[in-house]
């Protein structure tokens, strides 16, 4: 693969100087990432750099309920437990919105982090971004209502994707937001009637971004601004 001529959408890869990218790219295998594919589940053997699509980081409770605690797209890397040298973590990361990207062997990912100053610094910025995202979500999940959380989530995904169409179902959304499906359907209906989104045949299209931004809770803006400051969005 001619890495030096390639333009990466992934923000970590795109930020690397040529020589580091060349070395790293020898270990990157291009992969298609279909919806539902599991990237991390307890153990972590590979890392992923998404170019397109969205991965959800989910915590599942004893009674089977799941709540999404973070979203990863081309803004970062899937595999922080590998980089942090811990072999795995509670929770599960899987593809929510299909896309594509690069896969790297866990050992190679960790080696690169150890030897490459630029890569390490980029990843460390992402570590903070991800931490800020989950911390804000911890507050948001306690304080904010379903419409503003739904709006936040749609915008967060939109920021990480090309185009305005998100292929997903109300079931997925209910699981992700930790709310009953009926509640999510009602909230989505509200956003739709207000002209912010259109939902049809499993695809949510964002039709009025500004209005959606003013409906979202401030958590959307806080996390987005931090990601922009860290050069991840």
């Amino acid at each position, binding site marked *: 693969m001619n890495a030096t001529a390639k333009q990466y959408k992934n923000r970590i890869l795109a930020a690397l100087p040529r020589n580091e990218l060349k070395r790293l790219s020898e270990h990157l295998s291009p992969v298609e990432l279909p919806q539902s594919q599991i990237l991390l589940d307890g153990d972590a053997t590979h890392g992923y750099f998404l170019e397109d699509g969205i991965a959800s980081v989910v915590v599942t409770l004893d009674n089977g309920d799941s709540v999404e605690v973070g979203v990863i797209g081309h803004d970062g890397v899937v595999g922080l437990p590998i980089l942090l040298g811990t072999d795995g973590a*509670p929770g599960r990361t899987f593809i929510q919105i299909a896309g594509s990207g690069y896969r790297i062997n866990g050992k190679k990912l960790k080696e690169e982090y150890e030897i490459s100053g630029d890569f390490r610094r980029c990843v460390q*910025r992402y570590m903070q971004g991800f931490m800020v995202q*989950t911390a804000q979500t911890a*507050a948001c999940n306690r*304080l904010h209502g379903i419409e503003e959380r739904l709006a936040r989530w749609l915008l967060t995904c939109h920021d990480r994707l090309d185009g305005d169409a998100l292929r997903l179902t109300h079931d997925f959304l209910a699981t992700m937001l930790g709310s009953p499906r009926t509640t999510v359907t009602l909230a989505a209906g509200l956003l739709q009637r207000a002209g912010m989104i259109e939902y049809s045949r499993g695809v949510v299209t964002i039709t009025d971004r500004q209005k959606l931004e003013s409906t979202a809770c*401030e958590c959307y803006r806080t996390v987005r601004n931090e990601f922009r400051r860290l050069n991840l969005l």
Partner: protein
Amino acid sequence: MKPVNPHGFRNRILASLSTSELERISPHLSEIKLPQDFTLLDGKVNYAYFLEDGMASVVVTVENGSTVEVGVVGVDGVVGIPILLGTGRMPGRAFIQISGTGYRMEAAVIKSEFERNGEFRDVVHRYLQAFLVQTAQTAACNRLHNIEERLARWLLSCRDRVQTDELALTHDFLSQMLGAPRTTVTLAAGLLSRAGMIEYSRGVVQITDRPQLEHTACECYRIVRDEFRRLKLL
């Protein structure tokens, strides 16, 4: 600058370092008293703090002034993540919830220590993961669990990190941390008290039946605690 405690550290990060690493680091550790409400981080942060005793709350404050606690730090870790990750600052605030003591290290020193490919970085990495697991679990917990189980979880998490059985906390504090109205917290605390799990008197909570409290706590307590233990931080 007082000499470092020659009898060893209670802070798990410092306690895990080899003699040679400690020899290099300890001249840069200044002992510091940490009174309740002392701010360690507020967006910006100038020092890293290693608690030996006491506990810090990490909180997010939203526009209408409500705060929610998203993590706790005691002997299990270090406060100063933006320094370590080289980002300058981080939204949120960390302040002392339960007073204690600890060590302070200047930003430039801890940053260069972290940059070395050594033990210090390895153990701090483990702590970063533990902290991430804590906030992630809290994100789920805050969505799905009720006030009694969250209060039980919180009291246990706190007790695991401090050196005392007596936790000096007011219902006001708890209400802010748990993001619930004070009346709700008072009711929940009353329930735990009547069931014999805690005693609450004059702003001090004492855990009187630990097994029952663990049983009442949501699973989030166990999951996070087990991860901290696996990572050798508790």
